[in-house]
């Protein structure tokens, strides 16, 4: 108890020094929290560029389809899959899809495209493409010949709303499927692959055009928590018949899953680097404060304070400093992250979208909250403070009372 009182008052004694040390610690942890928040924001964008704008968090398909996207590897258990999926705890939506690769032409321009047959009312529960429209509208539920495509693709075709496109592909029966369709809307996701090569068409229209009536290639599913995709996929797989397989986004994008998984290690390394720099400052301050109190420690020892108690006193001071910095740093970090989340910084003037690990980083700085962005830096800061207190504390505990008293 008395040690606590002494520790607090000693910190207050040289207020300027304590505040400067605290400032260095708070600056390092809050800015670290902010940058981790921005990294999280990038990861969310990256993951979303693939999952929420294309594949969903997991995909159910006939065995073999997902590896080669073979046109004939179809499934027809849409009903059963949707029903089982909707019983999952974090289920958000499921969308049955048919996929075809072909050429889109307008006038004398032709571009290859991936054409995805969807049910608009179901698809909007899975992907966010309907929120990324920059022109026109999304597909209507009873639409027949409408198409919604990426802005890059439209630019290359010189297509605009109302343009009549020709779609040519190989149908399942070996014939050449082709039909006319009207451009209804254009989406701009920032993801290079989607904007330059993806088009959405009504499911039943595509089923007819490529001669696969009532057939599907996959059911894409989104969850409320993407990080739960792996265990959830395993659960769902157990409930479906064994002609089907389930993949989560981590299996579909192993490189991105690894980047996100290794993020923990990078966080740790970055924190340690910053705190090593901050830690040297703390060691210095505490040493100074121990050195200039040498005589005082001599008195304390002469009056019967155990060396272990002296050590505890100095460690207590560094711990109090660490806890204070931790709380202030986390608070400031929270507000900085909040600011970056709500306001953010638009970089589209100076850079474009960047592909990374199979996804796309959008040209903006924007933060996301993640619990570990807070607890990891905070905990490490406290550890740094306690470690930095260790050497000065040991020195204080090893003082010889007579020599310490003689010190002036």
């Amino acid at each position, binding site marked *: 108890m008395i040690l606590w009182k002494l520790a607090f008052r000693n910190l207050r004694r040289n207020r300027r020094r304590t505040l400067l040390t605290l400032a260095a610690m708070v600056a390092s942890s809050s800015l670290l929290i902010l940058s981790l928040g921005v990294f999280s924001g990038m990861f969310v964008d990256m993951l979303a560029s693939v999952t929420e704008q294309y594949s969903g968090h997991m995909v159910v398909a006939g065995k073999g389809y997902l590896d080669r996207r073979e046109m004939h590897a179809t499934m027809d258990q849409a009903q059963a899959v949707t029903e089982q999926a909707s019983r999952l705890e974090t289920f958000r939506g499921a969308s049955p899809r048919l996929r075809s690769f*072909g050429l889109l032409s307008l006038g004398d321009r032709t571009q290859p495209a991936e054409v995805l047959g969807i049910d608009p009312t179901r698809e909007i529960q899975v992907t966010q493409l309907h929120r990324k429209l920059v022109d026109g509208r999304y597909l209507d539920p009873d639409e027949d010949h409408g198409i919604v495509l990426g802005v890059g693709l439209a630019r290359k075709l010189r297509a605009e709303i109302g343009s009549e496109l020709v779609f040519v592909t190989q149908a399942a029966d070996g014939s050449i499927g082709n039909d006319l369709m009207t451009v209804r809307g254009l989406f701009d996701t920032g993801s290079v692959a989607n904007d330059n090569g993806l088009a959405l068409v009504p499911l039943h229209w595509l089923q007819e055009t490529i001669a696969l009536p009532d057939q599907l290639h996959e059911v894409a599913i989104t969850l409320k928590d993407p990080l739960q995709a792996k265990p959830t996929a395993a659960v769902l797989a157990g409930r479906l018949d064994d002609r089907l397989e389930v993949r989560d986004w981590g299996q579909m994008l192993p490189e991105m899953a690894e980047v996100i998984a290794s993020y923990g290690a990078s966080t740790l390394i970055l924190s340690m680097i910053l705190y*090593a720099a901050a830690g*040297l400052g703390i060691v210095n301050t505490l040493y100074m404060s121990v050195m200039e109190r040498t005589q005082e420690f001599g008195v304390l020892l002469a009056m019967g304070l155990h060396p272990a108690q002296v050590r505890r006193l100095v460690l207590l001071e560094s711990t109090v400093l660490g806890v204070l910095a931790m709380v202030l740093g986390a608070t400031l970090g929270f507000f900085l992250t909040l600011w970056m989340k709500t306001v953010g910084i638009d970089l589209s003037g100076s850079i474009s979208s960047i592909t990374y690990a199979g996804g796309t980083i959008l040209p903006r700085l924007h933060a996301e909250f993640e619990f570990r962005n807070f607890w990891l830096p905070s905990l490490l800061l406290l550890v740094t403070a306690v470690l930095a207190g260790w050497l000065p504390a040991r020195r204080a505990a090893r003082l010889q009372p007579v020599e310490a008293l003689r010190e002036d």
Partner: protein
Amino acid sequence: MDLLRLAWRNLWRNRRRTLLTVGAIGFSLLLIQTFHNLAIGSYRQMVNSGVRSGSGHIGIYAGDYALSREETLSYLPGELPRTITGLADVQQVVPRLYLPGLAQSSRESRGILLTGINPELERQINPFLKRIPDDRMIRGLDSRDALIGDRLMDELKLKPGQKLVITVQHRDGELAAELFRIRGVVRTGVKEVDHSLVMVGLNRAGRLAGIPGQVHELAVILHDSAVDRPPLKEVQALLPTRNDVRALSWEEAMPNLADAIKLDYASQKFIFAVILLIVSIGLINTLLMSVMERIREFGILIALGTRPARLRALIAVEALLLGAVGMTVGCALGSGATWLLIEYGLDLRWFITQELEFGGVVFDPILRARWDWPWMAGMGLLLMGICLLASLYPARKAARIEPARAMRHH
């Protein structure tokens, strides 16, 4: 000179504090220099492999093809490859034709990018073709041989030696199809590319699209020594003035890669700034402490007739000396670490086992640093500047000491 000697002695009065401060300065300099050198080294690796399979260090395009990828912007290169290769800095000029199209096997079809190349030249510079054995290369500019992305081949359910039909748009607007035979398989590690790449002979591709002899891109590959100063103007001067052909640096031609590097380096700079901020606060703290504990002494100095300006100068010189020692230590450590990272590299496979694509280029998993002496020196001087700045407030405090009060100070 007296001032310098006095400052130097003062610095070592509290040896532990000075050493710790020197440690903090040196450590931060070590971090900043090493990370910077590692970053520019790895960017160089990315750019080297990126430009060789992409635009070249300098790309020559008609109109805004680099951005719009507008198929009609093809041009006849004429004598350009020969004249540009004549420049001293240029290692190679590689022609390419890019045609979006559809590839069909007997059962599947996929959208592709048909790339017409000069197999012989391409092989010398494109890192992805270097791995392909001789007997798997396209035989000549006119052959029906094709190289194909490994994922694409899988999806088309084909094997080397089998045939596929490629349909592209003829310049007159009609679709034109032709049969090719898979000769070799390409794996770049970039998913998008491995899903869509088909390479064939340049002449065969040009005739298929009705634009024989034309190209979309001349990729100019430079000698290593010239990479930092691309001879953009010299190349531009060789281009014909009549049509809209222009030379672009790789940064303009491959914005994905350039921006990836920009973004990565920006986040590094942020971390550098945080490190410098922390060190600055620590410096102010140290210098302030050293002044506060000498208040009595300064009081006596003033009482003996020392001018406050001289005290201020003394403290500034102490700070600069501290900075100089810190800088020396930091530069030594930074150079050592950089040397290690050049000799042995940093193996990313400790963290990530997958091939990693960034900005359209696959990382070499072993990052290697690169010397950047001017930058390292600049950072050292910057830190000395910070030391000087950090000494301003403590110096002002010392100069304002009132001798009578200071001498009573305990």
